[in-house]
């Protein structure tokens, strides 16, 4: 979402290669993430001119590419692959380590380390296709297999000087807490010196929500903090973790409410959370740091102006608002305009079939549906998911409930109006849209004109709004 909003990356030639590593083959949130990354990729191909670079003032300005096509000339025309596949996932941990083939002594050692019962919380007999169910002691073994996977080997062999890595993980689950140190170790031990010596950034997300109590579930938020302390103690002594150039930490001690307790699979779809948004800013921060900045390993924590609960835009510092939140505000205006205003302004010039041809979905029905779906996803993410105090600390940011004006779109930052000043009224928005669209070059492809129009109009809305709360 940050990249879609046009958050500025200070370098022209950056491309981001997202990689998801999750053994939970059907995880609902993983599927959602995959879909939105693919949508971003497709939208950028259709709506953004190739000359736009990450430091441009534009939505979707930063390219993302597939880890699977790093060495191909037609990489940008391929579909986006974002997930590493683990081999032999649909099996139990016992089969994975060939427990039945071990001699008795080794079997006994294994059974000391892992619960071999078949109750509701198996360890040795855990089916790996649903992830590690909060067991990093299992994950740390399985993850070692990643080094032999074709995906990792491809990634390793194509890693060049100047490339960087950023690892995002949680510390209180199974996959992140085991995968993170294993990944760092694999990279620092690589035979490809570019990878071994690269700048590595990472964010380790500590507990920020609770789950409902369920005795049958392997997930218990009462021990999240305990797991966190254990993992942090391990990290503190691990030479590979200590070699990370920029390690970011975040957590939230205010955790009202509780999420449904779903161990994994399709049903694990949690609402977005402001901690996740803030975590994402660490990636941008890391990319924007120079190599000299990263020479000495350092750690970072996030600071806000106020400890608001619920959290609002005014609680962020000026720096955060300027670097990140301002762009989300632009995108919020654009989303609202695209979803609620453009389809209704049928008599305006920009709507005409000889201009943007909105009735005919800009001439790219598939692309148009994707971008509207993306805007809709953004709108739900900000105004519904992060707004929900059942999922932990709520973040109240934008209000998309009105289609007559945008004066109240920013929570806590209402635009003042008067008798002769209606602010961001529907007619004002129509005027800005038409002016911006008509000003675009005649030979520009229609989808690019559409997104440019939205960007410029959203930018003007933000300017008219003035200072953020």
């Amino acid at each position, binding site marked *: 979402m940050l990249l879609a909003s046009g958050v500025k990356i200070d370098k022209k030639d950056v491309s981001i290669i997202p990689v998801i590593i999750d053994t939970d083959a059907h995880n609902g949130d993983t599927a959602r993430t995959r879909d939105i990354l693919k949508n971003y990729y497709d939208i950028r191909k259709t709506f953004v001119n190739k000359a736009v670079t990450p430091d441009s003032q534009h939505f979707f300005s930063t390219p993302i590419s597939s880890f699977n096509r790093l060495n191909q000339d037609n990489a940008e025309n391929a579909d986006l692959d974002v997930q590493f596949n683990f081999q032999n996932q649909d099996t139990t941990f016992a089969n994975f380590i060939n427990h039945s083939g071990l001699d008795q002594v080794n079997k006994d050692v294994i059974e000391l380390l892992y619960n071999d019962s078949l109750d509701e919380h198996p360890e040795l007999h855990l089916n790996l296709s649903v992830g590690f169910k909060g067991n990093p002691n299992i994950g740390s073994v399985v993850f070692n297999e990643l080094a032999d996977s074709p995906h990792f080997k491809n990634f390793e062999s194509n890693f060049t000087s100047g490339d960087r890595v950023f690892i995002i993980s949680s510390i209180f689950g199974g996959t992140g807490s085991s995968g993170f140190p294993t990944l760092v170790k694999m990279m620092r031990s690589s035979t490809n010196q570019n990878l071994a010596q690269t700048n590595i950034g990472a964010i380790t997300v500590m507990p920020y929500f609770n789950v409902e109590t369920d005795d049958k579930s392997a997930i218990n938020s009462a021990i999240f903090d305990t797991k966190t302390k254990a993992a942090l103690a391990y990290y503190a002594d691990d030479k590979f973790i200590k070699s990370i150039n920029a390690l970011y930490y975040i957590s939230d001690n205010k955790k009202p409410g509780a999420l449904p307790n779903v161990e994994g699979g399709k049903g694990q779809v949690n609402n977005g959370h402001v901690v996740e948004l803030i975590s994402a800013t660490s990636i941008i921060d890391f990319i924007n740091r120079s190599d000299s900045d990263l020479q000495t390993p350092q750690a970072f924590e996030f600071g806000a102006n106020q400890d608001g609960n619920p959290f609002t835009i005014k609680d962020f510092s000026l720096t955060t608002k300027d670097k990140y939140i301002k762009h989300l505000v632009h995108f919020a205006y654009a989303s609202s305009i695209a979803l609620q205003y453009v389809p209704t302004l049928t*008599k*305006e*010039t920009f709507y*005409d079939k*000889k*201009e943007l041809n909105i009735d005919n979905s800009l001439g790219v029905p598939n692309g148009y549906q994707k971008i509207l779906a993306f805007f809709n996803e953004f709108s739900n993410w900000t105004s519904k998911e992060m707004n929900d105090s059942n999922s932990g600390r709520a973040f109240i940011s934008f209000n998309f409930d009105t289609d007559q004006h945008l004066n109240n779109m920013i929570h806590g930052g209402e635009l003042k109006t008067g008798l002769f000043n209606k602010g961001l009224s529907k*007619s004002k928005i*129509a*005027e800005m849209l*038409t*002016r911006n669209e*008509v000003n675009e070059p005649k030979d520009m492809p229609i989808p690019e004109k559409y997104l440019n129009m939205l960007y410029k109009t959203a930018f003007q809305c933000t300017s008219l709004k003035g200072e953020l709360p």
Partner: protein
Amino acid sequence: MQLSIFSTLYEFAIGQNQDYPEYDEVVFSSVGWLTLAAALLIAFLFYIVLGRMKPIWHHTSHWFITAFLTGILGFAIAFALSKDELQISPDGYLIRFACFNLLYAMIYYFICSLLLKHFSIFSKRTPF
């Protein structure tokens, strides 16, 4: 040459008036030029002034209303100038002349629309 263009247009529509040669000598030319200028001015106001300033009068329905008002103005120009020049009570010929000038005014407005719409912002695609 200028006299004959408008004379041809009007006499084609309503025929010659043998009783009042002033139509052919004076009235047709002055009404013709004034009507054309009025249509151009109105189209200019619609497309260039209002059409670039604010989207308040730019829809197709507004265009049709403006075209109709231009026609009314054309009628009024023909009626008033004829009556003033000839000092007569309105007769059938005068009324027919005014009615056809209403139609010509709307046609002039349509032609000026085609020429000026591309310079507009909010009326660029009005009426098509």
